[in-house]
């Protein structure tokens, strides 16, 4: 490709000049075979596979960064992953592509601080060790699961997944499971206090009532299957974002940055893609690899089929706020408590970012899910850090002055992602999961939300492969 960074610089210079002269950039690049929209794993995998079969491809990316929801925080100590962090060894496409591109994979570090028995609980304003928690009178969890870490209770309550494989998640035979998780919990007599605690860890919906039981089972099956064949999950040496970057480098065609697509016109003869800056791109086909919240800002002509359009509008994406804090002093050795916390308070969860797995994390991640994000969203960085420090000090008194604000990543506030991943609400898998990957005219769809088997990174890779395959049949 024409190197992305160079393109970015070129583009930045051009737009600065355009801004200075008051003239909008109006370029008329040469027609190409396929325009891929979105330089995340899905789009880039589609692009490279299409080029492998001799097609000319151009990638348009709205942001100034390659990788989409693979985002390695290179500027934070320990380089934490803000996006996709675990590559299943069964994630065949992800692993194979990393191998082909010469990237090294290594098992995710296992921090001794993340051992289950070291979990610190902070519930109702009181601090417990996990060993204590099982005997706490206020522990609202059902008797047989009281001693478990609270983040493991939900999967135990709903029981083993009835999906024989992740390949079954869209199978209509499971449609009866596409109901709110709360339906099962209420039938099982799980009280409100327990349900509130269960929501803390739930990353599949803002509330349990908005979480599909089928999606929960799908997620559980995914977790089981990604390590079933070849063992524990992995990451790319140097950061997972190196994978989409390597994909982009391997392309012959251009990856144009800061090109926010606003309209896609699909005709009998070809497609016309219009960007916010006025540029117009023509091709025979399009791969739209945008997350749905970003797709909401694209006008499709002709309009998408009714169910597809409804899915784009309705499907919610996960709210996730991460507060990355650099460690200036390992305060936990003073407190004797691992910086690994689960809480019903505003911090929700804290994890050490122990990239070497040696018990010396360079940073911590405060991880807030769902509705809990709102109280942080309202704060600027200084107020956010003041609040995070005060809340942490309630649990870890020695943490005062031992942490430095590094970065906030709030995926739901990033307009180009719109959230962490597609959070299929009850009924939505049955209604939308098939429709979302059906081509419309000359436009083919990819992205994590259009995967047919695994979730996450592999869903993205698989969807790019599928979209490329669909186009190759027609091209």
């Amino acid at each position: 490709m024409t190197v992305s960074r160079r393109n970015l610089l070129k583009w930045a210079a051009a737009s600065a000049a355009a801004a200075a002269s008051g003239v909008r950039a109006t370029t008329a690049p040469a027609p190409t075979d396929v325009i891929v929209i979105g330089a995340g794993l899905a789009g880039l995998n589609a692009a490279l596979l299409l080029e492998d079969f001799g097609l000319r491809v151009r990638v348009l990316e709205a942001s100034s960064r390659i990788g989409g929801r693979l985002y390695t925080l290179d500027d934070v100590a320990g380089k934490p992953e803000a996006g996709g962090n675990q590559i299943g060894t069964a994630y065949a496409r992800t692993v194979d592509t990393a191998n082909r591109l010469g990237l090294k994979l290594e098992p995710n570090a296992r921090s001794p601080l993340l051992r289950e028995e070291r979990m610190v609980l902070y519930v109702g304003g009181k601090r417990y060790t996990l060993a204590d928690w099982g005997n706490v009178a206020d522990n609202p969890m059902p008797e047989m699961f009281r001693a478990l870490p609270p983040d493991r209770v939900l999967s135990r309550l709903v029981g083993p997944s009835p999906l024989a494989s992740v390949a079954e998640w869209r199978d209509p035979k499971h449609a009866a499971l596409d109901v709110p998780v709360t339906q099962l919990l209420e039938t099982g007599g799980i009280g409100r206090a327990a349900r509130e605690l269960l929501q803390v860890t739930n990353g599949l919906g803002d509330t349990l009532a908005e979480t599909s039981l089928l999606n929960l089972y799908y997620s559980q099956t995914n977790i089981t299957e990604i390590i079933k064949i070849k063992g524990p999950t992995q990451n790319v040496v140097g950061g997972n974002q190196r994978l989409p970057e390597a994909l982009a480098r391997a392309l012959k065609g251009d990856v144009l940055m800061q090109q926010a697509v606003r309209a896609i016109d699909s005709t009998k003869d070809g497609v016309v893609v219009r960007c916010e800056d006025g540029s117009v791109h023509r091709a025979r086909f399009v791969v739209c690899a945008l997350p749905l919240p970003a797709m909401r800002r694209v006008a499709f002509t002709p309009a998408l089929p009714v169910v597809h359009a409804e899915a784009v509008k309705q499907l919610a994406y996960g709210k996730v706020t991460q507060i990355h804090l650099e460690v200036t002093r390992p305060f936990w050795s003073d407190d004797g408590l691992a910086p690994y916390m689960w809480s019903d308070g505003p911090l929700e969860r804290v994890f050490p970012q122990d990239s070497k797995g040696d018990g010396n994390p360079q940073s911590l991640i405060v991880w807030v899910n769902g509705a809990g994000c709102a109280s942080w969203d309202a704060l600027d960085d200084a107020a956010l850090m003041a609040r995070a420090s005060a809340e942490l000090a309630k649990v870890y008194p020695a943490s005062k002055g031992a942490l430095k604000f590094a970065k906030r990543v709030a995926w739901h506030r990033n307009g180009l992602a719109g959230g962490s991943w597609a959070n299929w609400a009850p009924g939505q898998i049955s209604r939308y999961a098939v429709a979302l990957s059906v081509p419309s005219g000359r436009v083919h769809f990819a992205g994590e939300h259009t995967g047919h088997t695994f979730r996450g990174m592999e869903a993205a890779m698989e969807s790019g492969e599928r979209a490329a395959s669909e186009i190759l049949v027609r091209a």
Partner: protein
Amino acid sequence: MTTSDRAVVVLLCVWCLGASNSAWSQSSSAADGMVTAVTPVTAVTISPARLQAGRIAFLRCAACHSVTGDATSASVKVGPDLRGVIDAEAGRVAGFGYSAPMKKAASNGLRWDAATLKRCIENPAQIAPGTSMVYANSLGAEQIDALIGYLASL
């Protein structure tokens, strides 16, 4: 083998190895532009267009399966190598860690003829319930036929 302008024929009948030493090689006829790719056991006539369709369909397989015939690929790919799979017995790749259900199917005499391969591609659980092959088919019947033709041509 480049076949964009040539037909590829893979013999369907049992090849009489005694009849020709060229049984393992390919021969071309300048007169009609045809290419005959020969496998020792079976064959189908496959047009260049179908062969290309098969190659495209194999895109959905390539992350998990090599077709190099190289046993070491088992250590890097998630699935076994598929070179020579047509009409071979299941579970044949030495050193590959087949799942228990696939081992069982193999011990029950499963062979990868066109019919069993087709059923496996449509849904691997039809062949070996519980197999670790994770695949949700999106290929149509014609693409699957082309894919099997492509595998037979290797």
